[in-house]
């Protein structure tokens, strides 16, 4: 995830954060180097406590780094104070897992809040709020209170509110984690549309790989306060290198071995060879296993798998077993046709 500084919306450089605690300090983040490309949707995934929330909150100065720098559209956030920091915050919208809407204000009132805070004149606020309500599709609900809205509607209000001051960057703090899968999809679609239409850079944190698969162009994996892997989402999904990434992936890409196989897996023969085949790009749509059977006469046993889209690119993951003595031939054939294979072991 590198690029020239002018192409970057957010740059983390040697960023670290530690908190004082009885008998020393606790390190929340350490040596974070990450560039968020302008116009990208970049996702950071990590388990709870990995430090992803702290990392996100440094972008708008809700937390200050104890080491290193965070730069947002060229401005050093950690050094900014008072009016300078507030100006940066108006350029960085934020949405939250629990929406954080004012219960005392209607949809309209909630969206107007950041504009009132910025001192926008009343007439302009009304016009802008109407436009935002339209943009997120909340028209008939403009005068409702948050308590009368569903989770997805509340998050739309949160998104409209975050966009009110016309920011260049949007931070999303687990924005879909409190929503059901269907609502999550509609909110992700809205975020994707905003990203395309407004050229807005979105930095989101999540613990769900599916969210990254659906909208992130770039991603980073954070573990115990360090970034262990980062790059374009497609590359990481198709060629994960770190065990943490693999473990996150196992849930969404069908790479988990069925229990009845996993329990009997051993390092060497005898037994059928279990192979993970990764399909990327156009190969995902080729009938490779059929060709394996017709061209080499090797019949593969399918143990599990899935084919899906990352962004708009197809990507598949298949677990097969073939007779041990034909494993090498099968793999060579698949590799020559642009697929990636990995031997997981042998099973009786």
């Amino acid at each position, binding site marked *: 995830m590198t690029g020239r500084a002018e192409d970057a919306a957010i740059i983390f450089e040697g960023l670290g954060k530690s908190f004082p605690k009885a008998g020393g300090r606790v390190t929340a983040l350490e040596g974070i180097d990450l560039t968020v490309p302008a116009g990208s949707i970049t996702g950071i995934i990590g388990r709870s406590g990995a430090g992803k929330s702290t990392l996100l909150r440094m972008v708008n100065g*809700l937390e200050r780094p104890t080491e290193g720098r965070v730069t947002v559209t060229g401005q050093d956030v950690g050094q900014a104070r008072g009016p300078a920091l507030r100006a940066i*915050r*108006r350029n960085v919208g*934020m949405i939250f897992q629990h929406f954080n809407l*004012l*219960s*005392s204000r209607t949809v309209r009132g909630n969206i107007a809040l950041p504009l009132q*805070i910025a001192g926008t004149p009343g007439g302009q606020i009304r016009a802008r709020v109407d436009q935002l309500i339209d943009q997120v599709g909340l028209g008939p609900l403009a005068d409702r*209170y948050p308590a*009368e809205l569903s989770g997805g509607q509340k998050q739309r209000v949160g998104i409209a509110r975050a966009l009110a001051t016309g920011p260049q960057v949007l931070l999303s703090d687990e924005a879909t984690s409190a929503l059901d899968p269907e609502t999550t999809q509609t909110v992700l679609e809205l975020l994707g549309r905003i990203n395309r239409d407004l050229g807005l850079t979105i930095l989101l944190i999540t613990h769900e790989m599916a969210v990254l698969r659906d909208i992130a162009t770039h991603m980073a994996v954070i573990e115990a306060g360090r970034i262990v892997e980062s790059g374009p989402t497609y590359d990481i999904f198709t060629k994960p290198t770190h065990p943490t990434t693999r473990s996150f992936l196992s849930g969404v890409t069908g790479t988990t071995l069925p229990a009845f196989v996993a329990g009997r897996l051993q390092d060497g023969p005898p037994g059928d060879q279990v192979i993970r085949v990764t399909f990327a790009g156009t190969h995902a749509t080729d009938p490779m296993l059929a060709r394996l059977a017709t061209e080499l006469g090797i019949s593969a046993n399918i143990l599990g798998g899935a084919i899906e889209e990352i962004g708009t690119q197809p990507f598949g993951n298949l677990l097969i077993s073939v007779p041990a003595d034909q494993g090498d031939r099968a793999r060579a054939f698949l590799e020559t046709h642009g697929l990636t294979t990995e031997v997981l072991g042998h099973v009786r």
Partner: protein
Amino acid sequence: MSANLIPLLWEATLQTLWMVAVSSVLGALGGLPLGVFLATSQRGELLGAPWINKILGLVVNATRSVPFIILVVAIIPFTRLIAGTSIGTNAAMVPLTLAAIPFIARLVENAIREVDQGLIEAARAMGATPLQIIARVLIPEALPGITLGLTLAVVSLIGYSAMVGAVGGQGLGDLGIRYGYQRFMPEVMAAVVVILIVLVQLVQSLGEWIAARVDRRAPRNRGL
């Protein structure tokens, strides 16, 4: 009850209402800002002034630990300084207000501390100043709680106002003691008690009605 007691009860009711009204308004004027400050000035909070917070907290606690009847008598010199006299209805408003301020301050502080921290974070992320957060987020969101707190304070002041007879404060409580108790007129005592119950009931109902009107935290049935 003889007919000439009616004007007496009416006058005493008006005196009580007047004392409670003035001391409630003054108490709220002092208690609201103090409560807001107490709720936002601990270490790491919006106004972050931990020392002033501690000192004010101690003053509030000290005032609240003095029984009201003692407070009335103990501050007579101060009352004279403010009201020009130490007896009468106007003088009685001084201790009533002085008791109301810390009481209301604590109730307001509690109401504001109930506001979800996430809202403060959201407002900070929007670039709000601490004062904007207080005025546009904390107070509006705490309004149902503040309203119920003020209701409780007014009800307590109605009770307190019965004690200011000790400094010639007049009002219903004073009437009840002087006529009902000292002159053995139980019908006056009964009338005073009934009027006090009605007053408290009215204040409580009004307070709850207003609190419900400003409370938008739960969905409301919308008529078709």
